C-alpha cells in the first residue's frame, strides 16, 4: 500500500538523486547562498582542524611549559602562549574537538528527544497535549543559561554534565516547534489511513509523522549546534563547564583573559575569535539551510 507520504518521500529522493554532478550543485549553492557557503567553509575548516589536530601542531595542548610562559606571538608560537606556557594556537585547534563534540551531541540528542516528544504531543492531543505543553511552558520560562547553570550545579562540572546541561533546555524548544508542524500533519488523510490500517501509535508517529517534520527538525539542529558551542563556552568561562586541562575555548578565556588583557592581550583575543567564528559559521550555514527548506522563503 502506497501512502501519500511515501510518494512524497520517493519524489524527494528522486530530486536528490544525482542528476547533476556534485561540483555543479556546490556551485549552485554558492551562487544562491553565498553566506551559507561561507558558513559551510568555516564548519569544514573546523572539522578538518579537529580531525587532524595532532598532525597540524607539534605541541602538546595540555602539558605545561613554564619556560615559555606568556610569550608574545612569534614564529614558533604563532598566537603566543598562555600563563602555563601552552601554545594558544594548539589549544584552539584541539579546542575545536571539544566544541564540536559538545555542540553536535547536545544538539542532536536535544533535538531528537524534542522531535519525538513534540510529535507524540501533537498526535495524542487532548489532555496529554495540554499537560505536556504546560510542562514545556515551565521549562521554557527559564532563560537558557539559568537552566543550564542549575543543571550543572546538580550534576557537577565536566564534559558529560555540560552536555546534559545544554541538552535539557533544547528539548522543549524543539518540541514546541515540531509540535506545531505535526499538528498540521495530523489532519492529513494519510494519518487516518494509517490508523484505519491498524498500525500502532508508535509506528504512525515514527514512520509516518516524524519523516514529515524533518524540515523544522533539521533547522532546529543546525541552529542548536551554534548555540550549544556558545553555551559551553559561557559555562566554561564561568568555571562551571569543561575543566582544566582539557582544551576548551571558553575555559581559555576563564583562566587569564581579564587578568592578562593588558599585559598579554593575545591570551584574551584568540579563543574568543575562535568561538565567534565557529558559531558564526554554524549560524550562517543553518540560516541558508532554513532558507532552502522553508517553502515560504524559497519563492523569494
Amino acid at each position: 500500500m502506497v501512502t501519500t507520504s511515501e510518494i512524497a518521500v520517493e519524489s524527494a529522493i528522486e530530486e536528490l538523486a544525482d542528476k547533476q554532478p556534485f561540483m555543479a550543485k556546490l556551485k549552485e549553492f554558492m551562487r544562491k547562498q553565498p553566506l551559507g557557503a561561507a558558513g559551510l567553509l568555516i564548519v569544514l575548516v573546523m572539522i578538518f582542524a579537529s580531525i587532524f589536530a595532532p598532525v597540524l601542531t607539534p605541541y602538546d595542548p595540555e602539558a605545561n611549559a613554564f619556560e615559555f610562559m606568556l610569550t608574545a606571538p612569534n614564529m614558533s608560537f604563532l598566537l603566543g602562549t598562555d600563563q602555563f606556557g601552552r601554545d594558544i594556537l594548539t589549544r584552539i585547534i584541539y579546542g575545536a574537538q571539544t566544541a564540536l563534540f559538545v555542540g553536535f551531541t547536545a544538539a542532536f540528542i536535544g533535538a531528537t528527544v524534542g522531535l519525538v516528544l513534540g510529535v507524540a504531543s501533537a498526535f495524542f492531543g487532548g489532555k496529554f497535549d495540554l499537560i505536556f505543553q504546560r510542562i514545556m511552558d515551565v521549562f521554557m520560562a527559564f532563560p537558557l543559561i539559568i537552566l543550564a547553570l542549575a543543571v550543572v550545579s546538580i550534576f557537577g562540572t565536566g564534559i558529560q554534565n555540560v552536555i546534559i546541561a545544554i541538552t535539557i533546555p533544547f528539548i522543549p524548544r524543539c518540541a514546541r516547534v515540531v509540535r506545531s508542524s505535526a499538528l498540521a500533519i495530523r489532519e492529513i488523510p494519510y494519518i487516518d489511513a494509517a490508523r484505519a490500517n491498524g498500525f500502532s501509535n508508535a509506528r504512525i508517529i515514527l514512520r509516518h509523522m516524524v519523516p514529515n517534520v524533518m524540515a523544522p527538525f533539521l533547522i532546529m539542529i543546525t541552529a542548536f549546534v551554534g548555540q550549544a558551542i556558545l553555551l559551553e563556552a559561557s559555562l566554561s568561562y564561568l568555571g562551571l563547564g569543561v575543566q582544566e586541562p582539557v582544551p576548551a575555548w571558553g575555559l581559555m578565556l576563564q583562566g587569564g583573559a581579564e587578568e592578562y588583557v593588558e599585559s598579554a592581550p593575545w591570551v584574551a583575543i584568540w579563543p574568543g575569535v575562535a568561538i565567534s567564528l565557529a558559531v558564526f559559521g554554524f549560524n550562517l550555514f543553518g540560516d541558508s539551510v532554513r532558507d532552502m527548506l522553508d517553502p515560504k522563503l524559497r519563492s523569494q
Partner: protein
Amino acid sequence: MYQYIFKRLLLMIPTLLGAAVLIFFLLRLIPGDVCEIKLAGAGLYVDQEQIDICRKDLGLDQPMLAQFWTFFSGFLVFDLGKSLWTGREITYEIALRFELSLQVAIMATLTAVLIAIPLGTISAVKQNTAIDYFVRAFSIAGIAIPSFWLGIMIILGLLISTQAWFGVPWMPPIEYVPIWVDPIANLSQLIWPAVATGYRYSAVATRMTRSALLEVLREDYIRTARAKGLMEKLIINRHALKNSMLPVVTVIGIEFAFLMGGLVVTEQVFNLNGLGKLFVESVTNQDFSMTQALVMVVVTVFIFTNFIVDILYAWLDPRIRYA
C-alpha cells in the same frame, strides 16, 4: 477580551507552581549544602554537631514538603525569606542590585532597538544586495560573538585607545552610582555592558525586522501605494514599517525578559554587582533560598512580559481578537 486576560492570569498559576517545584527539588538534589560550605569553607575541620546546629538554625532539617510550603506560600505574598548565606532579607539583597540590572537591561534594549530597526529596514529594502549581505552577516555575528568576550574586547579597546590619546589608560568607575546622583559616572560605567549585551540582542530583532518587512512589502496595498506614485520613503516609513512592527515588538519584549539571563555573564566581565552576579554567587555558595528566589523572580518577569506582549499584540493589531 477581559475574559481572555482573566484566563491567561489563571494559567500563570500552574506555570509558576511548576517552576517552583522544578527549581526547589532540583536544588535539593545537589550534594552538600550551605552549612558545609560556610563552616568547612575555610578548610578547617568541623564536627557534625556544628553542621547540625547550623542546619537547624536555617530550617534545613525540616521535612522537604514543609520547606517547600514555606518557600511557595512566602513567594505568593512576596515574602522571599532570608538568604542562607548572608542572613539578610532576600528582598533587601535584590532591591540593592535591582536598579543596576534594570538600568543595564533598559539601556541594552534601547541599543538593540536603535541598531535593529534601521539595519533591518535597509536590509529588507536592499534585499540580496551587498548591503543586505553585510547587515545579515553583522547581525549573525551578534549572535555568534559571546557577550563576555565582546566585553573583554571593549575593555581592551578602551584601554588601548585612551592610552594612545591621553597617555593614561582610562578605567571605568568601579563603584555603582545611581544615575540621578552622577549621570556621567553612572553612564560611563554602564554604557559598555549595555552595548555588549545590546548588540547581541539586536541580532534577533534585526532579522525579525527584515523578514517581517519583506513580507509586508509584497502586500497588495504596497503595490497600490507604489502605483499611485508615492515616494518610496513614504511607502516604507508610513505603510510598510508600521505594519511590520508587530513581530518585532514581540521579539523585543520577550528578549527583554531574557536579558536577565544574558546579564549573568556580562556582569561577571564588567565586575558589576547586579542580579546576575548575585545569581552566580548564590549558586556557588549553595544559597538555596537565594537561588530559588532569583529564579522565581526571573520566571515571573518572563511570564508577565509574555502576557503583556500578547495583550499589546491585540492592541497594535485590532484585527486580532482573543476569545
